[in-house]
């Protein structure tokens, strides 16, 4: 049996991290990886640290605490910019998982099919990391480096997410495709944020998940959307070539070709929906 620490403040947690610990929060990835096994490693439980929880508005946007659960996010009074992230939150597992699972857990687990990641990418989210040496911020796209791999260094802990305030009226949405309703690993998913000024797209951020080792933004598509009228025809701007950053694989849930096809369909639908 290993050690178990559940500190109340961040410094205590960072002190502990001078040696290796497995970080535990909502437990929704930790325990499933240990079915039928004795938990023997040293565990740092960060759910007791109040500073890591909750959503607040800042000068430049919003801060979302690392251990904010998906249900807390859904219940939060935040602007329509976050609608896509809320829709994603509602697609994470079932209600039980949403009540326990945390945002930081979702990104640190770094699954290619993490439901929270495309929406957070579309929000241009920055990840704040803390260690005894100080704090640093990384764009989410640089934080997740591969399948089950992140830029987290030894001694570091994800403490919060920062979503910048958009310059214009922003709308967002998320779509997930799975082989059943509820409790399903995504075959493909997409999230978009568009900013609208004078009925035209002034900024667009688009991300696709489960179609590459790490969910990807689609810069060419984002460019192509700029200046387009914000109406139900927006989806027609999506072209297959803009999906080049994706590199889907064949697996039990779908073939690579299929994933490419449906990513396109999801994006067209999403963009038409948010722009209409």
């Amino acid at each position, binding site marked *: 049996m290993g050690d178990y620490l559940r500190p109340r403040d961040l410094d205590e947690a960072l002190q502990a991290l001078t040696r290796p610990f497995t970080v535990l929060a909502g437990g929704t990835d930790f325990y*499933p990886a240990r079915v039928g096994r004795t938990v023997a490693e040293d565990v740092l439980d960060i759910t007791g640290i109040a500073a890591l929880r909750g959503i607040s508005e800042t000068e430049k946007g919003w801060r979302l605490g690392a251990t904010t659960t998906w249900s807390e996010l859904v219940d939060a009074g935040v602007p329509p910019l976050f609608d896509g992230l809320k829709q994603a939150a509602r697609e994470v597992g079932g209600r039980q998982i949403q*009540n326990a699972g945390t945002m930081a857990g979702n990104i640190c687990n770094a699954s290619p099919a993490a439901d929270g990641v495309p929406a957070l990418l579309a929000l241009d989210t920055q990840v704040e990391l803390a260690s005894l040496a100080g704090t640093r911020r990384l764009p989410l796209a640089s934080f997740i480096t591969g399948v089950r791999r992140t830029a987290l260094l030894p001694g570091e802990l994800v403490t919060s997410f920062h979503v910048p305030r958009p310059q214009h009226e922003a709308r967002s949405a998320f779509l997930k495709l799975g082989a059943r309703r509820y409790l399903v690993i995504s075959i493909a998913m997409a999230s978009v944020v568009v900013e609208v000024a004078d009925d035209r797209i002034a900024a667009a951020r688009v991300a696709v998940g489960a179609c590459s080792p790490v969910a990807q933004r689609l810069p060419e598509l984002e460019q192509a959307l700029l200046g387009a009228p914000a109406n139900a025809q927006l989806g027609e701007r999506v072209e297959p070539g803009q999906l080049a950053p994706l590199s889907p694989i064949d697996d039990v849930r779908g073939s690579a070709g299929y994933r490419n096809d449906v990513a396109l369909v999801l994006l067209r639908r999403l963009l038409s929906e948010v722009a209409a």
Partner: protein
Amino acid sequence: MKLQFTLNGRETDWDGAPVTRLAAALRDDLGVTGTKIGCDAGDCGACTVLLDGRQVCACLVAMGQVGGRSVETVEGLESGEDTIAALQKSFLDHGAAQCGICTPGMLMAAQELVRRNGKPTRAEVEDTLGGVLCRCTGYGKIVDAVMDVVAPSSDRAPVAGEAVGARIVRVDGHAKVTGRDVFGADAIPGDALWVRVVRSPYARARFELGDLAPLRRRLAAVLTAADVPFNGYGIYPDVKDQPVLADGLVRYRGEAVIALVGERADVMAIRDDEVPITWMPEVPVLGVDAAMAADAPLVQADKPGNLLLNGGVKRGDAAGAFEACAAVVEGTFETAFVEHAYIEPEAGWALRVGDRIEIHATTQTPYMDRDEVANLMRLKPEAVRIVPTACGGGFGGKLDLSVQPLIAIAAWTLGRPVALVYTRPESMAASTKRHPARVKAKFGCGADGKLLACDVTATFDTGAYASWGPTVANRVPVHAMGPYAIPNVRTWGEAFFTNGPPAGAFRGFGVPQAAIAHEAMMDGLADQLGIDRLEFRHRNALRAGDTTATGQTLAHSAGLAQCLDALRPHWQAAHEKIASFNATGGSRRRGIGVGCMWYGIGNTSMSNPSRMRVGLSPAGTLTLYSGALDIGQGSNTIMVQIAADAVGLLASQFALVTGDTDLTADAGKTSASRQTFVSGKAAEKAGQDLRQQILRLANAGPGATLSLDGASLSVRDGAELRTIDLVTAGPLMGEGMFDPPTTPLDADGQGVPYATYGFAAQLAEVEVDVELGTVKVLRIVAAHDVGRAINPTLVEGQIQGGVAQGLGLALMEEYLPGRTENLHDYLIPTVGDVPEIECLLIEDREPLGPSGAKGIGEPALVPTAPAILGAVHHATGVRVHRVPLLPHRLREAIVEKSRAEMT
């Protein structure tokens, strides 16, 4: 770590490792076992509890996080002794609990919602229950129960003589909605040793064991093949091909190799790689093509060509008759391994009592377990006592032995209780599966749409061991022509060994696979001739008086045409709605399909008797002694209903003793949809026997009415009232036995394989997203000829649950060894996938059955996949040849079709 928290309103102390899962702490440390464990991975929701009022999976919560917080479990729902909450009462009244293993989780998930909102919408209920899997009910009655939680319920206790046909609540329902029902893992003695099984990571390998002495020093025992007195078991008396522990050779991934026995923490702490096994993997034989290849390695040394069994039915001249057909269609259809996915993993414990061994485990078949364990241990059958626990779902998967041999052998030698509870991945890897099938079919009919000929070959992958493979290979040829009158028939079934998981019994014994083929043929012929698909089936439906392909003339109770008649108005109305929906264009297309089936009740051409007893004690206790196991389908309740009316006393006065091989007679296995028909008939006869004895004591005529009040039994015959003092009369015991009359099948499959058949027709409405390839089933209407519905609520529950499994078979379920060994990669339908299911009960009485009843368990599932696939074809023009129809497969077929149309 010591901590305090509030459990169901009470301050509770707990001490232990803080990473302990809340679910384990509740069950193992605090003895609160209403919270069930189905997966330990957050995939099934069975362990759902409320933490500070919000639903969570107790298997994912560290006890270190629980200190100072409030935990609510199913035990906390009751407001006082015997006062269940409105939600629990609603579950009871709606028949929302079947096996009951998901019920506590469902209740707690629902509680999160109804506490805030007593009148929730369907969508809110679905969102709330989306994280709890149920494999029995098809969710409909659960959703209704939550939505109707504030509606007052009616009193449903029927008067004497009117129990049959009444919607009485399950006799075991109270235990299920309170979490008190005792399942396989719920009452393991505190001093039990535990078994952990080391299983093969390879589909085919030879292995050598190293020095086990160091492990043996750490543990109570390390069992190997050498410790099993007779190391072979199997369903058939002459096929004992499956070892309890592999002996130098494994034939499938998940096969048991070594059993570690010791204190629970000790056996769990030992990793597989600490066990000295040297593996020599070999190329596995996977799939029937590999098994049939000329140079295929043998899976079983004594089975040349890897052939388990083959045989067929021949009537008329099928080959010749095709020449005369106005329309002929052909097709080949493939299905996958399908997992039962009962929410209760295999579990139980054993104890040696003198020279006998007692096994308390979850099972569908106590007497077969008794005889198998006796054979393995070289004991007399009487030296083995099976005490079945409540069974948290079976569907055929708990007909084979699981935990029983290892706990029995260990308890026998160690003299202590020994327990074994499978993990979810272990349950999935070790247990039997539905047979993957390749069904090649050719059907022809005349210009009048009357079927003239059929030729079907069904090839099955039976996996590594025989299990119920022979049953599948025998049953399918009898059913493969479908429920239709066809003069010229050739059907053939064959099963081959592979290094896949043993394929065994799964709701339908191969018939669901065959039905996918014959129903596609019906659609094809109807379309070719421009006849409505439902009318085409109606024209060809087997009716009373018709002779089947095995030469059996159906004297009674062949209600397929009535089922189709009942569907017709729904069919026509839906066609119109769908046409107008599709006329609007867009990426979503709707379609409707119909599927028909017939299903022989009971064993195929084999004796399968049931014996039941009804006793009346001197104290006035009326007891049904039933060996028929209720695995959720409701046999406990309907046996009481049948026996009550047969005796002429109130169902509510019955006590029930069930399953225990020391206390009940052999009522056979809960399989083949046989319990209502076979054991129900035996219960009826037992009740009648007791009634005869009472009438004789009272010297009363057959029309006398009885009433029981304590030890006093009143018999009113016309104007005369006699009272029997039961103390003076002494104990009374009525007994009944029934074995359905069948005959063996000859070389051409001619004979009477079953005494009666269930018939059904279902229609499915679907919406296909043609751009994504997804299929949403919008509605199912299911018409079933059940002979007589002993309890319509339970019959509906069986139909809805069967439909949900048929939907899974059609659209999402595919077991891949080593890849989908958990409930997040292996998908079964959630509450959001199963549509409204309307049940139409057709009661074409079967004179042999109790009050005319037949069976419903398997018939419920068989027509669903064909109806859905027919609807997909109607919507898209794509005929599906492989299930599950995953989104990418349908999308690829749609693309292929439009490409073909363009060229």
